[in-house]
């Protein structure tokens, strides 16, 4: 549950371009947990997740010159690097198992979720906020963002028309904005 990012984006980019130890430490302290969180949502094995995190920092470090502010915020760029690296790793490791195991896993996850009497109690209340996201929205974000499904694939998987996928994506992000918006 990191602290809100208050660092000026241009300053951060400048810091990264300097390629100093201080810059790295700052980057690591501010973003390692959120990047690691993203990676862990995609790959389950902790050792693999750590490898991916390392890859991600190396990529951020070596490619900061190719970051283009016109296309989005610096942390979106970093989150995307983490997500893409994790998805790539997952695909390179277990493409063949994808279809079969996924369904099994989801069943197991659902069962254990249902058995927890109260998932929504967290002293800070953040879990509650996240669970407050409507389940179909949460799984939509999971599929698109963390599993790398295209809209076509989501439409087939969820058995809803393509147009509805887009509308729901809008509604999901709108709800997140409502929750986190300033």
């Amino acid at each position, binding site marked *: 549950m990191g602290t809100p990012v208050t660092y000026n984006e241009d300053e951060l980019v400048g810091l990264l371009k300097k390629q100093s130890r201080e810059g790295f430490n700052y980057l690591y302290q501010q973003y390692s947990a959120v990047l690691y969180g993203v990676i862990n949502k995609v790959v389950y094995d902790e050792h693999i997740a750590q490898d991916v995190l*390392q890859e991600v920092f190396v990529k951020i470090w070596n490619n900061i010159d190719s970051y283009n502010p016109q296309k989005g915020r610096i942390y979106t760029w970093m989150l995307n690097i983490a997500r893409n690296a994790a998805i790539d790793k997952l695909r390179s490791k277990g493409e063949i198992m994808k279809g079969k195991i996924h369904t099994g896993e989801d069943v197991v996850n659902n069962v254990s979720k249902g058995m927890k009497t109260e998932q929504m109690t967290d002293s800070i209340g953040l879990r509650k906020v996240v669970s407050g996201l409507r389940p179909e929205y949460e799984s939509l974000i999971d599929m698109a963002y963390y599993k790398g499904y295209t809209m076509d694939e989501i439409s087939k998987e969820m058995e809803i028309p393509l147009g509805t996928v887009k509308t729901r994506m809008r509604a999901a992000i709108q709800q997140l904005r409502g929750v986190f918006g300033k």
Partner: protein
Amino acid sequence: MDINEYIDSGVLEAFLLGALTREEEELVLLKLENHPELRVELQAMEDAMLSYAQTQSKVPPPALQDKIWATINTPSQNVHENADDVEVNEFETTRKSVVMPFKPEYRRPLISWKYAAMILALVGSVAVNIYLVNEGRKAAEDKLALSQKLDKLEANQKQLAGLLATYQKSTEMKADTGMQTIVMHTVLVGHPMAATIYWSKGSGEAYVAMEALPAPPKGMQYQLWAIQGGKPVDMGVLKNDMANTPQMQKVDKLVTSSEAFAISLEKEGGSPTPTAQNIYVLGKA
């Protein structure tokens, strides 16, 4: 399409979530260039998405920071990687043109056909070998992935079996007439929390389950109290990994008498007396 319609269509959200094809992404990027109001809209979405990702943050092992720095700081790693790996939209970036030095060509006499065929056979054989080695490596990786998936399933299954055993035990305890069940309810308004005590007055044995208590923050631990003669008496600290699970743990001390039970959040290792504002749940015996 009018710009508000464009925003309402959800295409920016799909763009942010990475669900568009490359062609569609290019179209969005063009739109973004020409409409600053779209950028504002997208940035608000990006902020929300970051906040969402932050709720799922996980702190990596502390040793990793130095290890990653060591990797970054090794000169051989400081080679620009293919930008295609880095970001879906960033495919025009690090491709630099390479200037080849021009050398006048030195013309050899034509190689005999026999010689050429030999080289061809050699090259072919090397290629086949490389292919086979790669296939072998791929098979090994697939196998690794498979066994990891199986491990994960097995772990899940064990966890489920553990849960089942817990439920069975809890059912047996509830059926035991000598065993009193005391549900402790939240004392903090707006935070629905609960925990349960199973207490055998006869033997003094007690079990506690923190089924609806949040995992304690770092350096903190839950502590159980029995209220005896109006005073809280320490019944020991509770294991952190039992929080927010229906699993029961045996209370360290014998509970000979008690008017009520309470759980408070204390520093690791527990306190001699409960911190008043940190009493989370309370239930009368």
